[in-house]
């Protein structure tokens, strides 16, 4: 397990060091933009591979969307009639709708809106929801009066309260920066 995530760490570290070492202050947020679009064949291949990597990750993120949406629509219960058929139909409609919407906008046009969505809901899902879950879970006891879950470290409940506040702060901060950047 550690080898897999360790490999990820190595990949990211190398991209960071090598990219910045090459272009310094003119390094683009999307580093491949620093490389020539047609003369540099290796860069073109890298763009193709980047696109393939995004496609491969698309399904992973879509899996998260399906889990949440089907839970909201109560379509994830085993007793639902024609559950698989309904799920596949909704999934196909979602992919079509997202693809169609993307035909009318470019990544730059989506910048501010997505920045706000990412900041708000990202902070909520990553920091606030887990904090609420942990605070309640660590306080729960079973029928014998024993805690149902052991804390990872002392003071974990307080830590989660701080993390919840942390999430609120960065939701506001991220929204502010997205709006500030969108105004330029």
């Amino acid at each position: 397990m550690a080898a897999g995530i360790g490999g990820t760490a190595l990949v990211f570290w190398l991209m960071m060091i090598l990219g910045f070492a090459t272009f310094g202050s003119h390094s683009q947020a999307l580093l491949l933009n620093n490389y020539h679009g047609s003369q540099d064949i290796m860069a073109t291949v890298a763009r193709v591979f980047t696109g393939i990597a995004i496609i491969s990750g698309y399904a992973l993120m879509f899996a998260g969307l399906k889990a949440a949406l089907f839970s909201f629509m109560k379509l994830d219960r085993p007793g639902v009639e024609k559950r698989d058929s309904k799920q596949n139909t909704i999934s196909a409609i979602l992919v079509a709708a997202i693809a169609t919407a993307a035909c009318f906008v470019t990544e730059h046009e989506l910048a501010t809106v997505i920045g706000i969505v990412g900041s708000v809901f990202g902070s909520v899902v990553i920091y606030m929801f887990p904090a609420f879950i942990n605070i309640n879970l660590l306080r729960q006891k079973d029928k014998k009066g024993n805690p149902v879950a052991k804390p990872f470290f002392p003071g974990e409940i307080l830590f989660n309260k701080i993390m919840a506040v942390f999430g609120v702060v960065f939701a506001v901060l991220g929204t502010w920066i997205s709006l500030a950047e969108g105004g330029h």
Partner: protein
Amino acid sequence: MSAAGGTGAALATIILFVFGFLSWYSLVTWARAADVVLVKAKAENAGESLSAVWERVLPNGKLTTYIPDLGCVALTIGCLLFYSAFIGDIFGSLVSGLTGLPDILRTRWFVLLLLHAFPILPLCLKKDLSSLKYSSMTGLVGIFYTIFFVGKRLTDGTYAEGGEFFDLMPSKFQPAGLAGFPQKGGLLGYVGDMPPFHYGKGLLVLSTMGCVSYACHYNAVKVGLVQPRSCLFARVPADIVSHTCALLAVCLDDCDSSSTSWSSRIELFQRCRVSWLLVLVERRWCFGS
């Protein structure tokens, strides 16, 4: 790292560790909660969503399951919309240069819709995350190649002044030192130019990016349910390292305050995705299948 005045490499690293630790912690705790209320409690008819855990942990959780569900839906739809636009942009520009194809086949919208019909839709209809391992592996190969490519271009000097491609690029894409910091040169190029603990307004940008750069928690319960405890806790140190380097990569690449918005966010989400790809590899190792 140099956005809005810049952030030193050491300070950026610390920020990465902080957000990486927090993101890892929230991931693991989702899995812990799922383990307690879904696995050990042998919950019947429970889904694999965050709300499945939410309703069993929070008081009156059943009444508010829509909150985590809609939060995840909003987050993932926003990201997927951007992914789709990005796929259209990158493949549209690649195909537009292919001569010999009819004009309609070289349009951005056609390429975008075609790719969503195949292979994206079949992949999205998969039920089990482990079935995505082949496409995930392909993505990983692409990432490794990109690493190799970036390293090769650094060492061969083709983009440095006097190199083969230097004059072909607009000045804003050519290598340049950081304003206000003398160029020291050396093996790491521009990396060592800024004092390691330097900070400015860019620290704020860096922090807000780091806050959500590991946004992959929408699958936390799904993956956490299939990981044995030993594997879950064994990857703790590796998680911290990977997430740390993920954001550090973004930090040090991020040098233009005007470009910190969208392209940098897709980079952040790409790195989250790579972490999830490696999680699938980990599953394979843990289960030996």
